[in-house]
């Protein structure tokens, strides 16, 4: 479980996060949603240590991450897998080398053991046999899936996904969402997905944290989100014509 407590973060006097708190349980898909500039990605980056919060704490199964030394953070980060918005695959490496990279760095496995793990991860994201391709030869959806395969290669306890559906067509988005949910349930990871995609919200949002202008406005599940009276949340959820039409119909 990951818990954030009263996180504040500002950049050059501009306060981006204003006292965010929340609990993200393991084995369920946790979503952080909100409009552009609401602070979702900043919160995610504070959680993984890419940004240092001005105040507040981030607890990984009770371990306070924020005051940790560099060496202590490294140990926690070995338990983290992350899928980036642009996949962040290493251009100079093949798919196989990308997935094998963390294994090379942190394990003493033999080449065959590592290859076995790479093939397992690739099979798990339906990309078996694509080992020797370079990132430039992959489609957007394939890059995301390789990103997921790399993120799970070390059997992470915590999985972070930053806008996994951005730039993908609706069908591929659903494939990625389902994959994230399956992996979360299968490996009992604490998964946190930052998104503003309503298909993801309705499809995989076991726990949802809604941010607006750097503040937490609402938390709940996808079953409850359509029935709230909070104006900011309703404006966000029913912004698209499709969602509005669906609400009017039912």
């Amino acid at each position, binding site marked *: 479980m990951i818990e954030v407590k009263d996180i504040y973060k500002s950049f050059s006097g501009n306060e981006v996060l204003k006292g965010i708190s929340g609990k993200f349980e393991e084995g369920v898909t946790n979503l952080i949603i909100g409009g552009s500039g609401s602070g979702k990605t900043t919160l995610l980056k504070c959680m993984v240590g*890419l940004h240092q919060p001005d105040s507040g704490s981030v607890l990984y199964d009770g371990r306070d991450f924020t005051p940790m030394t560099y060496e202590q*953070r490294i140990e926690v980060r*070995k338990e983290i897998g*992350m899928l*980036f*918005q642009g996949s962040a695959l290493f*251009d100079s490496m093949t798919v196989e080398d990308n997935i094998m990279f963390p294994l*090379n*760095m942190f394990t003493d496995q033999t080449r065959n053991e590592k290859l076995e793990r790479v093939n397992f991860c690739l099979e798990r994201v339906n990309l078996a046999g694509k080992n020797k391709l370079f990132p430039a030869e992959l489609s957007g959806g394939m890059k995301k899936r390789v990103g997921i395969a790399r993120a799970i290669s070390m059997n992470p306890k915590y999985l*972070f996904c930053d806008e996994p559906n951005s730039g993908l067509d609706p069908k591929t988005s659903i494939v990625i969402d389902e994959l994230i949910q399956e992996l979360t349930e299968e490996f009992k990871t604490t998964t946190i997905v930052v998104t503003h995609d309503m298909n993801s919200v309705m499809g995989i949002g076991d726990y949802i944290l809604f941010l607006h202008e750097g503040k937490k406005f609402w938390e709940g599940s996808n079953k409850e989100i359509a029935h709230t009276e909070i104006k900011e949340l309703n404006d966000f959820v029913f912004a698209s014509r499709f969602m509005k039409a669906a609400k009017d119909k039912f």
Partner: protein
Amino acid sequence: MNFTNFGRYILLLKSVFRRPEKLKIYLKEIAKQMDYVGVGSLGLIAIISTFIGAVMTLQIAFQLVSDFIPKTIIGSVNRDSSILELSPTISAIVLAGKIGSAISSEIGSMRVTEQIDALEIMGINAPGYLILPKIISGITMVPMLVIISMFLSISGGYIGGSVSGAVTPSEYLQGITTDFNPYTIVVALVKAFVFGFIITSVPAYEGFYVRGGALEVSQASTRAVVISCISILVCDYLVTQLLL
């Protein structure tokens, strides 16, 4: 580079020299970088050095108008100029353009495409993994390139002098072997070591802290080359003053 940037540069270097996560992977990366910096720049350095040596011979001959000065002096001046100044400094400036811009663009692109963030999330010391192999290759391969450059520059002087008739081969050979001070080689290698460090670390710094997109990456690359060249010239003066 203002004081804030200089402070950040020093802090980055501190991170670069942290203990590697896995030595074997770093060694592999160092070998790759050595191949790129050393072998990859050999052709360019060979062409530049040979022509500079040849031109030097012609220009020295042109300026020696007095009959009281022996022609052998052409070889001596060419030798000392090549060893002390031309080979280390011109090679370093050319390499700053070739290698420096490549390092800055590579690391800058990795920054804007979140590849550096990905390394950090994995628990890898990104400055160490990305920059240390480049610095080690710079401080080892640039001195080697400079040694080759010295040899080729002096040889180029021989060829230029012989072909143009500005100096006879025997006079030139006599000149380059007269009053040779081996200490000049030491000075040149110290310069090459310092320049190798600058050529790799300054562009790496510029690339590592890029914010934005393709435009900022190209701006960082240009800045890296300009700052590297200025730093090379300043350090050239300082090392010369200290050692000669």
